[in-house]
Each structure stands twice: as C-alpha cells, then as structure tokens.
C-alpha cells in the first residue's frame, strides 16, 4: 500500500476536496475513509474495478448521497450538508454513466438547459421568466458547446433518438454549457468505440486547457485515463489503494492486485 500524501487544508484553489469520506449501505461499507483532491487546471482520474465505490464517491461529491462520515469542500467551502443544486450553483457539474438526457427534448434544448437550469436556480420568478441578458448568454454558451462537441448538425433531433456515442457528447456539451469550474465525468467512454473515445478525450483536454477548469474522471478505459489524466487515484473495496502519476500506476503492485484479485498478485 502506497503511503497517502497528507491532505492540504481546504482552499479556493483546491477545487473539489473530499476528506475521510465514508458511506455505508445497510451494513456494507461502500466507501471507506477516502480522501482526494481534484484541483482546477488538471484532469484527475479515479479508477478501480467494478464495485470499488467510484460512482458512490461521485454521488457523494455531487450531493446525491449524504456521507456517513467525512466532508466535501468545493473551492474552499464546506458543502457537505448542501444539496446537488446548491453545489452546482457553486460551480460543480457532472455527467452520468447512464447519460441522463432529457429524451423528449431536442439536442439543442438539452444543451441549453445546462446553463438555463443554473441561471433559474431556486428562485420562483427566475424559474418562470428569463431576462434578455440570460437568453443571450444561454444562446452563446449553447452554440459554443454544440460547436465544441460537433453536434451542430444534430441540434434539432430529439435526444432520445440518438445513438450512444452522440448521447455521450450531448451529455458532455450540456455540462460544458453550464460553465462549471469543476466537472465530474462518470465513465464517459462506456459504449463508445476507440475513435469516439479519442475524440471525447481530446474535447475534455481542450476544455481544461482553455477554460482552466478541473475535471475528475471516473473511467474504465485505461488508454483514455493514461492519455489525459495527470494524476490518478485507485479505489478498491471502497478504499484508496494508490495515488500518483499514470506512470506510477503501471508499476504499482497494489493496483495490479486490486484488478486481478489478491491471489494473482
């Protein structure tokens, strides 16, 4: 087991920081004392075998699950007790492994809602009416995202009718429209072929370089992880078993054991 680096105190630059996160379902501890940091300007990877607790960690980060123990800080603020909408308004966006698109709406509407939902927030009047500056901002952000993800030609198609590869891109475009400072991407490559995956990776790397946002990526596809992540965390049975560079992961016995089972190590 690799020694864990000490967690820095919560700060503005640290982006997303989770400390000593523990989540149990019934008697089963899905995530056990996990601490990790996903700062701005960096793509951080979170990998591990099925059932290691990656998605559970993600859900705790975005506020869909309340941790039993531990805390979540976003840009230096403690958001552990806040709901998903409030975290999103602080700058945390996410995609879903299952691409939770608004299937009955067009691609363009889906993408536009990335910003519109955030602008509407929790104020009844703002939810009812959109002022002109909002509309202009939403239109501009939507166009930019559609362009970035190459979805311009599909803008009028209903999202429910798209193939998986395009759905992934709509999910990504939607979260990019929101202008979030930190993105949680949940297994974006599942269901994509090699060239689609490569393209997806390129878009994400490009956005991080241009906008300076941070990304926390949960991923199975090791080629994608190795090519775009600068820093990796490896989870197994709810515990962090490795933290370090992609090169370090390749040489780690602990990671090999986690994936192949301890008898193989």
């Amino acid at each position: 087991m690799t020694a864990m680096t000490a967690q820095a105190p919560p700060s503005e630059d640290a982006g997303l920081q989770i400390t000593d996160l523990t989540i149990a379902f019934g008697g089963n501890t899905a995530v056990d004392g996990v601490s990790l940091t996903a700062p701005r300007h960096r793509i951080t990877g979170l990998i591990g075998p099925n059932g290691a607790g990656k998605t559970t960690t993600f859900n705790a980060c975005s506020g869909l699950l309340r941790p039993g123990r531990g805390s979540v800080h976003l840009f230096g603020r403690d958001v552990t007790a806040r709901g998903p909408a409030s975290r999103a308004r602080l700058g945390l966006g996410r995609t879903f492994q299952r691409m939770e698109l608004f299937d009955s709406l067009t691609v363009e509407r889906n993408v536009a809602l990335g910003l519109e939902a955030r602008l509407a927030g929790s104020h009844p009047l703002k939810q009812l009416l959109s002022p002109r500056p909002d509309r202009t901002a939403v239109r501009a952000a939507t166009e930019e995202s559609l362009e970035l993800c190459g979805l311009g030609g599909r803008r009028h198609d209903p999202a429910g009718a798209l193939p998986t590869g395009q759905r992934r891109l709509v999910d990504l475009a939607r979260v990019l429209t929101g202008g979030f400072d930190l993105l949680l991407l949940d297994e974006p490559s599942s269901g994509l072929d090699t060239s689609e995956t490569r393209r997806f990776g390129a878009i994400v790397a490009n956005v991080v370089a241009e906008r300076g946002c941070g990304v926390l990526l949960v991923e199975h596809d090791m080629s994608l992880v190795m090519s775009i992540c600068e820093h990796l965390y490896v989870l197994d049975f709810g515990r962090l078993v490795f933290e370090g560079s992609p090169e370090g992961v390749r040489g780690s016995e602990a990671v090999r054991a986690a994936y192949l089972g301890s008898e193989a190590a």
Partner: protein
Amino acid sequence: MTDILPFLIIGLTTGSIYGLAAMGLVLTYKTSGIFNFAHGAIAALAAYAFYDLHAMRGLPWPLALLLAAGVLPALLAVLLERMARRLADATVTMKIVATVGLQLAITGALLAHYGAAGLPFPDFLPVATVTVVGLHLGLDQLISAGIAAAAAVAFFLFFRLSRLGVRMRAVVGDPDLLELAGTSAVAIRSWSWLIGSWFAAVSGILLAPQIGLDALLLTLLVVQAYGAAAIGLFSSLPLTYAGGLVIGVLTALATSLVAGSEALAGLPPALPFLVLFLVLLVAGRRLVEVGSHRPAPPSAPLLRPRASRVLAVAALAVAATVPLFAGARLPVYANALVFLLIFASLHLLVRVSGQVSLAHAGLVAVGAAAFSHLAVGTGLPWLLAVLLAGAVAVPVGAAVAVPAIRLSGLFLALGTFGFGLLLERVMYRSEFMFGTTGTLPAPRPEALSSDTAFYYVLLAFAACGMVLIALITRSRLGRLLRAMADSPTTLSTLGLGINVTRVTVFCLSAFIAGVAGALYASTGQSATGAPFTAYASLTWLAVLVLFSPARSAAPVLAALLVTVVPAYGAGDAAVDWMPVVFGLGAMLVALHQSAADRAAPGNAATGNTGRARERIGAASAAQERLHRTANRAAVAAAPTGDRLRITAGDGEGTER
C-alpha cells in the same frame, strides 16, 4: 374501558376486512408494479353480482357466492394481469390512468344499471346476536371478521409453506427477483392477481351487509385499504393486515369521540386518508416504487405553431357565435368554458410537468367557496373577488405540492388523492368553505348578469387562461418542466432547485383552478362543493388522458365532452352510461399509448428500462448491496472486462 370496548370490537371486525382488501392490493402492486385503483370497484362489482344472483335471480347463496366471489374475480384477474403486463414500463400517468379508467367503468356501469340509491343487501349470514362478556355482538359481523382473519391466516400459511408462495414472497421482498425467477414470472403474477381479486371480492361481499349496497360507497370504502397499505409502507403484507385493523379501530374510536359534533362528523370516515397522507409524507423517500417507468416519449406537435394559432383563433370565433344558436342550452356552453379552465390547469400539471394530482377538484371547490365569502361575505367587487379566490387556492395548491417534494409518481398520486378526500370530507361542510348547508350564494357582475353577457365574460376568462398557459408552456418554466418530466435528478445536478419548480407549477395550476371554481359558482349563482368530489378528480384525469392524443387541444375536447355532449345526449340512460365510456376509453388510450411508446425507435435503442432502474438514487440499498456482492464475486472468480482492459492498458503503456 367498557365504553371503549364495543368500538374496539366493531373496529376490529371492519378492520379485519380492510386488512384483507389491503393485502390483495399490496400483493398485486408488489408483484406487477401496477397499483390497482380499481381494487375497490372489484369489491363493489362482486357485492352487486352476489345481490343480483341471490336476491334478484334466486340462486341459492352458496352458488351465488361461488360465482360472485370466485369466478367473476378470476375473470377480472385475467384481464388485469394482461393489462399489467402491457403497462410494465409505461409512464407513471398511464399506469395510474389505466386502472383509474377501469374503476370508473365498473363503478359507472353499476351506477347506471342498478341506480345510485343504496339497495338492501340480503343477509346471508345468521343475524342473531350473541353476548360476549356483557357485549351484544351481531353474529354476522363476527363471522365476517372471522372469514377475513381466516383468509389472511390461510394466505400467510400459503405464503410461508407452498413453493409458489415462497417464490411469491421472494418477489414481494424484492420485485427485481421476478426477472431472475425466469419462466415462473407469469405464473406468479397471474396467481397474485387472482388472489388479489378474490380478496377484494370477498371484502366487498363482507362489507356490503354493514353499509348497504352502494356502488360509490363500496368503491371508496375499499379505498380505505389504501390507508392500511400505507401503514405497511406498500410493502409488508403482515403490517398491511395490521394496518387494516389499526384503521378500523381508529375509525370506530373517532366515531365515538366526535359523536354529536356536527363539525367533526366528517372526520371518522376521512381518517384512513389522513393516515394515508401522513404516512406518505413521513415515509417520503423511504418508499421505493416497484418497477420502472419510462419518461414521457417525445411527442411531435400535430400542427405547426402557425396552424395551431390559426385554429385557436378560429375556435375563439366559433365560441363567440355560440349565443346565436345555443338558445336554452347557453348555460351548458358557459359551463364548458369553466371546465375548459379546469382541464387546462390540470393539463399544465399532468401533461406539461408530468405530475399526477388527484386533488384537483378540491382546489376548484376552494376557489368557489372563497369567491362566495369574498363577494358576498366581504362585499368585494366581482372581478377582484374572482382573482382573489384564485389566490386563496394557491396556498392550498402549495400544500398539495408538499407531497410532490418528497414523493413522485404513484405515491404523489396517492398522496394528493388522500389530500383531496380529506378536504372533501372534513373541510367542505365546515364554516371555512360551504358551511353545514353545503350551498352559498354567489353573484354575477351587476352590469353583465344576463346569460349572454356573462357568457362573454367567461369566454374572456377562458381565452386569457389559455393564453396564460401557452405563455407558461413557452416560458423558461415550461422548458424546465418538460425537462423535469424526463429527469429531475439531472436538472438538480445542473443547479435547478427542483422543489421550487414543483411547488411553482402546483401554485400556478391552483390559481387557474381557483378562478375556475369562482366562475363556476358565479355561473350557477350558487357555490357548492357537490360536483367537486375526489371522484370527480379521478374522472377529470381519465377524461383528459382520453384526449391526450390531441396534445394541447385535449382540454378543449375534454371540456366539451363532460358538458356539451351530455346536453345533446339521446336520453338519461345514455348520459348515465357516459362515465363507463370515459373509463374504458381512458383505459384503452393508456394501454395503446404504452404499446406505441414501446415501439418508438428511440426508446428501444437506448434501453430506458435499464436506465431508469440504474438511475441515481433509485436503486435501493439492498439492490446496491446485491450488485456489489455480485460484482466482487465476478471479479474474484473469472476474467472480466475490467481485467482484460487493464492488461490491455498496460500493454499499450509498455509499447510506448
């Protein structure tokens, strides 16, 4: 203590029957994912069938009982099982409307055929009185309670000991196991529907001697089973039976407590709904719905925006000429305009935001009562009173929306149904609403009080209401609502406070419904809650869904159907049978719609069922555990995709 004892025993005897009915309801819900709103109607149908065969046709009672409680429910069970299978992953609204439609059809047919007046039910059980520890008890009541208890015990034994029962129990415990059970799925479902329908039928026949043969009352009395099912959290069968006993005892005790108080007289019969509402509110997110629903599929508009605008203007023009030809039927058309507003406000909730509310009639009634208090009691100008009546309905709408924050889909529908019934039973006759007489005066505006002038006032309101709803649908809120119908979780992770959205749409809908209530009262020049029962809420939903293929024109057609069509009907008989047509029509639309959705290419390609099941937060802790354990076992036991993938990754790494 001796004062309470008789009520306790009465409570236990009726409670035992409620418990039996509720167990049937929960069993079918847990195995099929369809909550049977027609459960009470099956009870009523069986009771009437027994009456018909035994009292009218003179069959010996054991044979009549066999046919009414054994054969007839079995036939219905076959129908319900097929229906449930077709609805397996329909939208929530369609799942609800299908059985609501069946209920309306059965109850409507009973009312039309046997009349609305209660009939004396033949005493087929011995009616002698026995004295137990100083209490006089009807032998028939004791036997009824005994039969219900024996059926419950027999069912528990079957559930514990027989092979089928054990498999059924596994499915009730974790409905997802049904898929793992493979070929026996159909058998388990069929048996569940059979047992569920038998329990409903038996409880109907046992309850009828106590309350008389009244189709509406029987349908709604077995609805008491909802309360019992809620106590069992729609999941545990023994707790559900216990819930039936609790409801029976509470109702009996409440009856003894409020005896003599006019104001509280409505409380005891409303108690089960209070229990239902409170349990849903408190248990909230702990209630996990069975099965999966697909979100509403994309529905292309029938007409281009421009064409529909032209059509709307044309409709307005036709409506403006109605006083020229309507003659004595003008009040009917006036009512149609009021109902247009009612259906439009319901449409906003059900179609635009995908939330099913069964308390809508209550909101209309609140508007009607508030209008009378404001216009007559306080003497406010007419227009101000109408608008304020709408405003009064808003907080009530917000209260209905409270369950919407914590509940969704089916449980929201049940919660609002409970709320609507509570409002009707407890509040309608209170001084806050229509008072003990049930009727209040309601004026028309002085300058425009003639039928023709007032018709144009209503037309102006209806047009404004439709424009308002069109604006809301096109506003940011409309876009958010449509997205929310697909995936509320995603919207909240994008930063939207979805609880605010839900409450906002309920408030807007309540405002329009409240204004409609005020206008209804003003049209008839008296405010009464009589037409605005919880049963009306069910009917409206069914009628609206019946016309759902007409998209945004549905409220117009629905309003015409419930007001104008009966006025031109061939005779009373035809009008009596109309609810049956509504009910069956709504049921067929729901079934047809879900079949059409399944055939839609987008849905098949993306596997909505699986997505919905794995939707964040939808998986129960137990399922999560199961998946984790299975995954671990798979990782340990055999080479998996993950293992292959990481080795592939390593390979790439070394090559570089």
